[in-house]
C-alpha cells in the first residue's frame, strides 16, 4: 500500500493536538495572569477535551485516560467549584506539560511518560481527592436481543432525578467515508459512554448474509441515549472528527412516544426474524423501526441542528485559511529558488559580458527578472518562516521545571511571540536557549530569601523577547536577579589561569569571560545547569547559526543576554570582495562602513600589528589576505580598501580587502557537513561566473586572527 490513509489521518490528529496544546498554554498563561473569565476557562477545558475526544477515536487509551482525569478537574473549574489559585494554575501547567508528553509519546509510539500519576493526584487533590477514573464505565450488562434494533443499558448511574432535563437521543449512522477515513464507531461509542450512563441500541437491519456483504460498506447504525445533564457541546465534540462522514442527529427525548422500546426479549431469535437484506441500497434511516423520529438523510453530512447557545462553546471568531504542506516540498522549493537565483546571476554576468547598452530591451528585461526573482525568494523564505511562539512555550516549561528543581519562584514574561524566523533557526535555537533559561533560573536569579532581603519581590522574573531589528531577529533572555558578580568572575578566571593577575579588564570583558570554555561561577555544581560548560557551547551554537550573543549586566538589577540571528539560513545579503585574486563574500549585516585608507590613518602597534585611526578611535587592522593565508601582509596599506565591521561585544575591526565588487544577495551553501567547521568561514556560495566563493564569518575570523599586518623586521632580517 502506497500510503496508509489511517497513518495520514493520525498524523493530522497530532498536528491538531499541537495546536490545541498551544492554545492550552496560552489560556493557562491568561489564567495565571488572573484572567479567570469563562471564555479563558472554557478554552482550557476545550483544548483538553478535544485532545481526549480525538485520542479516543484513535484508541490511544493512555492519552485518553490522562486527559480524562485532567478534564475532570478542569470541569470543576468551569463549574465554579474550583478556584484558579496560583497553586491550582501551577498544577494545570504541570498537567499540560505531561499532556504534551502523552501526546508525543502516543505520536511516536513510545511508552506513556512517567510521573503522570503523581501530577494527577496533585491535580485531583484540588477537588478533594480522586476524580473519575479514565476507564470506561465498567459495569456493562449485555442482554441478548433480536436482530431488530436493540437496546442495552449501561446501568451504573441509573437513578435519574425526576426533575432532570430530558435525556439526549443520539442517532448516528456512519457512512462508508467514515471507515475509509480511518475512524471507528467503537471509539466514539466508548467516548460517549465515558460522558455518562449510556444506553446503546444497534441497528443491524441493513446487514445482509455474508455472501452479499460488501466488507467495507457502512451498514450499521446506532441510537444512544445519554443523561440530559450532559452539555450538548460535549456530545458534539465526540463527533468533531466525523461530523462530515456520518449522519448524526442529537436531540432531547420528546415524551413517551419517542421512548425506545424496552429491551427486546432474551433468547436467540429465529431465522425468520431477519430483516430483508438491503446491502446495495442506501441504508434505512437510523432505527426508524423503533423510534418515531424523522429519518436522517443517509450518507450526507450531519444536518446542523441549532446548538446550545449558552456561550460555553462559542465558535471561533475567525478561521484563517491555511494549508498544511509537507516540509520536504517546501525545502525542495527553497532549493529550486536558490538555484534560480544562482542561474539568474550567471545570466546577468553573461549579459554584462556581452556588452549590451544599459537601456537595451535585454537589460531592462533582466532587471525586471531580477526583481521578480528577489520577490519570489522573499516569498519562499516567508513560507519557511514560523513564529517563535512554540519555542517560547517550550521555554515556559523549562522555567517551570527549572524553578521547581531549585526551589525558586520564577515568572516568565514573554514578548514578541509572533516574530517570525526560519524554521531551521527555531529548531537549532531550542538547545542554546534552554541552556540560557536554565542558567538564568539557576545562577541569574537569587533565592527568594535573598531577593526579599534585597527589597525585591520573592518571585523572580525572566523575560524572553523577540523582535526584528535591521534584518535580523534579536532574542533576549533577561532576568531581574543580582547581576553578574564581576569580582567573583574575575577571581575564578584568575584561579583558572584564564587571565593574567594584572589584567585590567572592563566590565564587558569580565562579563565575556563567562563564554570561555569550562568557566563556571557556581561554587557548587548544580544538577540543573551542569558544570558551567554551557555558555561557550551556547555561543558556539549561536555562531553556527550565523548569530552573535552579547551580555549586559547591572549589579542588583539583573543580566540580559541578546542573541542576534539571521532571519534565514538560505540566503544573505553580502558584499562581494576580492583578496589576492580570491573572491569572498562578507555578510552585509556585519559591515558598518567601507573606507579607503590614507597614510595618516595607519598607526603601528607592536612589531607586527597596525591599528587605524578612525574618527577619534583606534580600530585593529586585519589583512584578510594574510589572515586567510592567501599572501603575506602588504608592505603598505596606504590607499587600501577596508571594511569596518562590528563585533559581538560592540567593538570594531577593520578588514583589508583588495577590491569591493558589488553588493548582492547570495545563496548560502553549507560547508560544515562536508568539511567540518572552518575558522573564519561561515559557508560558501556560487557566483554568477559559476565559481565558488567563501562567505566569511567576520566575528570568528577576528577572534582567531593573528592581527599581523606588518612583516616583522626580524623576519625580514632572517
Amino acid at each position, binding site marked *: 500500500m502506497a500510503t496508509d490513509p489511517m497513518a495520514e489521518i493520525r498524523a493530522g490528529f497530532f498536528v491538531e493536538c499541537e495546536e490545541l496544546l498551544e492554545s492550552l498554554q496560552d489560556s493557562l498563561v491568561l489564567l495565571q495572569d488572573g484572567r479567570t473569565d469563562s471564555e479563558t476557562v472554557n478554552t482550557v477545558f476545550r483544548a483538553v477535551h478535544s485532545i481526549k475526544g480525538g485520542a479516543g477515536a484513535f484508541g490511544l487509551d493512555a492519552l485518553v485516560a490522562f486527559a480524562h482525569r485532567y478534564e475532570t478537574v478542569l470541569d470543576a473549574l468551569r463549574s465554579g467549584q474550583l478556584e484558579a489559585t496560583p497553586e491550582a494554575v501551577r498544577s494545570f501547567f504541570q498537567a499540560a506539560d505531561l499532556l504534551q508528553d502523552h501526546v508525543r509519546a502516543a505520536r511516536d509510539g513510545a511508552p506513556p511518560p512517567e510521573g503522570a500519576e503523581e501530577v494527577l493526584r496533585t491535580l485531583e487533590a484540588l477537588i478533594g481527592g480522586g476524580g473519575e477514573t479514565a476507564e470506561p464505565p465498567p459495569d456493562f450488562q*449485555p442482554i441478548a436481543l433480536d436482530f431488530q434494533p436493540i437496546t442495552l443499558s449501561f446501568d451504573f448511574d441509573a437513578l435519574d432525578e425526576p426533575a432532570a432535563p430530558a435525556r439526549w437521543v443520539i442517532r448516528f449512522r*456512519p457512512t462508508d467515508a467514515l471507515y475509509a477515513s480511518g475512524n471507528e464507531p*467503537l471509539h466514539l461509542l466508548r467516548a460517549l*459512554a465515558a460522558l455518562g450512563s449510556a444506553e446503546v441500541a*444497534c441497528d*443491524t437491519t441493513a446487514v445482509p448474509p455474508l455472501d452479499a456483504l460488501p466488507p467495507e460498506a457502512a451498514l450499521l447504525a*446506532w441510537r444512544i441515549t445519554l443523561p440530559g445533564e450532559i452539555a450538548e457541546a460535549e456530545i458534539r465534540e465526540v463527533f468533531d472528527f466525523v461530523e462530515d462522514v456520518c449522519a448524526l442527529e442529537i436531540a432531547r427525548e420528546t415524551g413517551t412516544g419517542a421512548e425506545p422500546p424496552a429491551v427486546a426479549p432474551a433468547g436467540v431469535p429465529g*431465522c425468520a426474524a431477519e430483516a430483508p437484506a438491503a446491502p446495495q441500497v442506501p441504508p434505512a434511516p437510523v432505527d426508524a423501526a423503533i423510534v418515531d423520529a424523522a429519518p436522517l438523510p443517509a450518507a450526507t453530512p450531519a444536518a446542523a441542528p441549532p446548538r446550545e447557545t449558552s456561550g460555553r462553546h462559542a465558535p471561533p471568531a475567525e478561521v484563517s485559511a491555511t494549508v498544511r504542506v509537507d516540509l520536504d516540498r517546501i525545502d525542495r522549493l527553497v532549493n529550486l529558488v536558490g538555484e534560480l537565483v544562482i542561474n539568474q546571476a550567471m545570466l546577468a554576468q553573461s549579459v554584462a559580458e556581452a556588452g549590451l547598452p544599459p537601456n537595451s530591451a535585454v537589460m531592462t528585461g533582466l532587471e525586471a527578472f531580477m526583481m521578480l526573482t528577489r520577490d519570489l525568494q522573499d516569498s519562499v523564505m516567508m513560507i519557511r518562516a514560523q513564529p517563535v511562539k512554540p519555542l517560547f512555550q517550550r521555554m515556559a516549561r523549562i522555567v517551570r521545571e527549572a524553578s521547581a528543581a531549585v526551589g525558586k519562584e520564577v515568572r516568565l514574561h514573554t514578548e514578541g511571540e509572533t516574530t517570525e524566523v526560519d524554521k531551521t533557526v527555531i529548531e537549532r535555537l531550542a538547545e542554546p536557549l534552554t541552556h540560557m533559561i536554565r542558567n538564568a533560573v539557576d545562577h541569574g536569579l537569587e533565592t527568594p530569601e535573598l531577593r526579599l532581603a534585597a527589597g525585591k519581590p520573592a518571585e523572580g522574573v525572566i523575560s524572553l523577547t523577540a523582535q526584528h531589528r535591521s534584518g535580523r531577529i534579536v532574542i533576549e533572555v533577561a532576568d531581574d536577579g543580582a547581576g553578574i558578580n564581576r569580582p567573583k568572575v574575575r577571581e575564578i578566571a584568575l584561579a583558572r589561569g584564564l587571565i593574567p593577575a594584572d589584567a585590567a579588564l572592563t566590565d564587558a570583558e569580565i562579563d565575556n569571560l563567562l563564554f570561555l570554555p569550562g568557566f563556571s561561577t557556581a561554587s557548587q555544581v548544580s544538577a540543573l545547569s551542569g558544570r558551567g560548560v554551557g555558555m561557550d557551547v551556547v555561543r558556539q551554537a549561536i555562531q553556527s547559526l550565523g548569530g552573535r550573543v552579547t551580555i549586559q549586566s547591572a549589579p542588583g538589577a539583573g543580566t540580559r543576554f541578546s542573541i542576534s540571528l539571521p532571519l534565514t539560513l538560505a540566503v544573505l545579503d553580502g558584499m562581494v570582495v576580492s583578496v589576492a585574486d580570491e573572491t569572498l563574500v562578507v555578510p552585509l549585516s556585519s559591515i558598518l562602513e567601507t573606507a579607503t585608507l590614507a597614510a595618516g590613518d595607519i598607526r603601528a602597534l607592536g612589531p607586527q600589528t597596525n591599528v587605524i585611526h578612525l574618527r577619534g578611535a583606534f580600530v585593529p587592522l586585519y589583512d584578510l589576505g594574510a589572515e586567510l593565508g592567501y599572501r603575506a601582509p602588504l608592505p603598505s596599506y596606504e590607499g587600501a580598501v577596508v571594511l569596518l565591521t562590528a563585533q559581538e561585544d560592540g567593538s570594531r575591526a577593520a578588514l583589508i580587502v583588495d577590491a569591493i565588487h558589488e553588493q548582492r544577495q547570495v545563496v548560502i551553501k553549507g560547508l560544515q557537513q562536508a568539511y567540518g567547521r572552518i575558522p573564519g568561514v561561515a559557508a560558501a556560495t556560487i557566483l554568477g561566473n559559476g565559481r565558488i566563493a567563501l562567505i566569511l564569518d567576520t566575528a570568528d575570523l577576528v577572534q582567531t586572527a593573528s592581527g599581523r599586518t606588518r612583516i616583522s623586521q626580524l623576519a625580514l632580517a632572517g
Partner: protein
Amino acid sequence: MTTLALGPRLDLLHAGHACAEIRACEGRDLVLDAGHVTHLGALGLQILLAAARSWRAAGLSLIIAPRSAAFDDALVLFGLPLAALQSEGVA
C-alpha cells in the same frame, strides 16, 4: 466442526481478509476463535453479524469461542449481545 482463528484486529484494513476467510468456511459448522482479538471494529462486527445470518439461514452452527476481553468489551459498547453473532444450527 471447523475452527477458524480470527486475527487480532478486525477493522477497515483487515475486514476484507476476515470476510474471505469466513466465506471459505461456509457450509460447515464453524467455531470462530476470538481469543486473540484486540480490536473488534464496526466493520468486523458487520462481518460476524452477516456470517451469523448466513449460518442461521443454512441451519449450521456458528460459535465464537474463546473470546478475548477486548472482544466482549467491544460488543457491550456496540450494544449487541453475543447471541446476535452466533447460530445454534438446526440441532
